[in-house]
């Protein structure tokens, strides 16, 4: 990376081998079945796990097919930036793609997509977190995509929410993310990287990608992103499909949380003897 004295420098410029590849990369074309043989509205197998980062207050790891995401939550901690006193807590999110997470090597410094993603995840989580529970302090959520095989943003949202829950940050609800790729008539749930919407390889008519973040038990949408062009009805339909997708992932997340809670059992007696000074109840 030129001009960065804080890292070991490589050659001035280098090209990924696949630029010179004879055979062009293949994309999922409109019509026809999906490469991994899924039905249009099937999810890929989901794996969730909590407590993967020992140093963090809470953390989670998620796999959706080949997509791998890890999230760590720190805090509530002191507000890092000098700011005026606030009775509400602050939530901060940082989404990062590992340099080796994509076909094309990514740079170390945050790029536009990461900045945009960080904001979307933040706005997806904010409605779910009881910010008034930690005045003048902040909770930091760091998310790293280790491998992007599609629907990374959706995975990031789910994973981050699970991390928050694992950290014991008070929340009104968890958040589940899910994406849909609209390609002409076809509507693929939880698209893989080959199916994902890429402007440079796009078919005519309806095309685009919708990502939704859902608070499943309150049935509220906390994130909604559409890239591409869709007819109004298709858009609405796509959002509906996403929501059903989220509802499909929710039970898996729930099970993961329940089992992880069981794993580190608190002895209730000792806990209920817990000081009552902070025993104020949470009205909304």
């Amino acid at each position, binding site marked *: 990376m030129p001009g960065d*004295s*804080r*890292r*070991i*420098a490589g050659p001035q410029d280098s090209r990924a081998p696949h630029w010179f590849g004879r055979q062009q990369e293949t994309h999922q074309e409109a019509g026809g079945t999906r490469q991994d043989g899924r039905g249009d509205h099937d999810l890929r197998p989901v794996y969730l796990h909590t407590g993967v980062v020992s140093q963090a207050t809470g953390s989670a790891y998620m796999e959706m097919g080949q997509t791998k995401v890890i999230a760590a939550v720190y805090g509530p901690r002191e507000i890092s930036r000098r700011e005026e006193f606030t009775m509400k807590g602050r939530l901060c999110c940082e989404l990062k793609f590992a340099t080796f997470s994509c076909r094309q090597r990514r740079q170390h410094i945050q790029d536009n997509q990461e900045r945009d993603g960080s904001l979307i995840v933040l706005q997806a989580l904010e409605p779910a977190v009881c910010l008034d529970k930690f005045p003048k302090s902040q909770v930091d959520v760091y998310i790293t995509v280790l491998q992007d095989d599609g629907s990374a943003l959706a995975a990031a949202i789910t994973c981050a929410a699970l991390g928050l829950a694992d950290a014991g940050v008070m929340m009104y609800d968890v958040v589940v993310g899910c994406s849909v790729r609209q390609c002409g008539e076809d509507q693929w749930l939880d698209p893989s990287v080959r199916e994902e919407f890429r402007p440079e390889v796009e078919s005519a008519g309806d095309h685009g990608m919708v990502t939704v973040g859902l608070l499943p038990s309150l049935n509220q949408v906390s994130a909604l992103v559409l890239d591409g062009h869709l007819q109004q009805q298709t858009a609405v339909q796509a959002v509906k499909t996403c929501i059903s997708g989220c509802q499909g992932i929710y039970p898996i997340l729930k099970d993961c949380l329940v089992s992880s809670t069981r794993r580190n059992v608190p002895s209730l007696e000792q806990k209920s003897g817990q000081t009552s000074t902070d025993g104020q109840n949470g009205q909304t």
Partner: protein
Amino acid sequence: MATEQTLRSFGCEQNLLSRPDGSANFTQGDTTVLAAVYGPGEVKMSEEIIDKATLRVIFKPKVGLPGCAEKFQERVLRNTCESVVLATLHPRSAINIILQIIQDSGSLLSCCVNAACVALMDAAVPMKCLVSAVTCALTEEGQIVLDPDSKQEKESSAVLTFAFDSRENNVITCSTKGCYTPEQYQESLSACREASKNISSFFRQAVEKRMSKELKVKT
């Protein structure tokens, strides 16, 4: 195994800068390092340590911007100084050591350590003991060359640098390049240790030179 038991001629000058609290110029052969020490002075809030002084080493290469390699050296030098300085005597203060490379013709690291040590003494920063460093090179034939110049370093199969404390002559710091056997390591180590004694005794002479006036004057 044969050893070239000679160090290049080395010398030092103290107190040649007026602004710092202490300064020294150390030369080994043609390798020259100018060290300046500021402190114990005011410390940045972010770097404050409640029960001891914050040591910082700034390693200024002769040319070019400092990068990872320099940071690496800074860390080695800082830790080396930390292990002899009694930092707990000046809590919540900063001691800054600036090392300006005047010329590098071999054995740079050891020269830096020695320069820093003299500068710390000159600034009268309290120290447990002194630290003296010696570099040696292993030739392809496995011969040990003490205090090598850059040419000898380039030709060698490995370069080892040791820093010793002046009390028990144990190894405070060790940094090596290249490959070598454990036996070679031990031999180099003892060779360097012997040589380091000359340097520590040289430190005493340096102080006597500096104090000569007072020694004469009896108030």
